[in-house]
């Protein structure tokens, strides 16, 4: 149990969330994870971090500010990534069912991101 465990717990309590992780944004490696069985944690961490980095570059190029929140909707599920406002190296990554209450996840993610800063 690390300092991150309670943070992940709070996200995982939302119905429909299948797991969450703290990920190093630059190298896409897991720092701490709490996932349901069957989720390929390292793959999710690496792929979502990579997508987040690209999204961050694109909004920066457009001078729209520093991306702090990313949400990917797919046929069978949702992925979320949230970075602290100061854009430290850490990223919260969440995997959820497609029927999850997106608003609740966003709220919890924002709280965790703030705690990471």
């Amino acid at each position, binding site marked *: 149990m690390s300092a991150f465990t309670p943070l992940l717990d709070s996200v995982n309590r939302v119905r429909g969330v299948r797991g969450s992780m703290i*990920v*190093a944004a*630059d*190298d*896409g*490696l*897991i720092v701490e994870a709490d996932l349901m069985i069957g989720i*390929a944690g*390292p*793959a999710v*961490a*690496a*792929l979502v*971090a*990579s997508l987040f*980095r690209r999204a961050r570059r694109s909004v920066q190029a457009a001078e729209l500010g520093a991306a702090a929140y990313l949400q990917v909707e797919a046929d069978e599920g949702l992925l979320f990534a949230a970075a602290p406002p100061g854009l430290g190296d850490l990223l919260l990554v969440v995997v959820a069912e497609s029927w999850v209450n997106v608003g609740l996840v966003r709220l919890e993610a924002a709280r965790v991101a703030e705690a990471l800063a």
Partner: protein
Amino acid sequence: MRRGDLEEFIGDLKGPVDTFAREAAVRLVLLINGSGQVLAQRGFARALDVMGVAALGAGIHASSRAVAQLLGMPGFKHLHQGGAAGQVFIGPFQTPSEELILITVFGEDSSLGLVQVFYARLVEEVQKLPGWSQARPTTDAAQFERDLEAGLDHFFGAT
């Protein structure tokens, strides 16, 4: 003859290596054996440059394993060298025939995490290749001998 089986089908390695390069968005990929010989590569402009990287990569792998042994450890799962302009990942893995080593160079389009994920898939794919124990095709020995003479004469000058 531990490598005897490998030679026939190293062409089959190209598929997994290409997939890895594309999916992991890396710049260079090299698959070599423990002696530094190249089995597959992608992204290099010159065949002879490939060999230089392969030789050094095999050296890095061999020496890091020696370090692990000195420290009483079985070996490293992989090696990673970070850098601002580019990063290098060296991952050894076992096949039914012998140990192979993947060397890859990547930039900001990829990440250590991505490389690790797709490296694991490459290892799975390579280990599953059906060719590990197939019979070897043959070539005409007499013809080879004749061509060998001519080739040596061409390179060194007739003596």
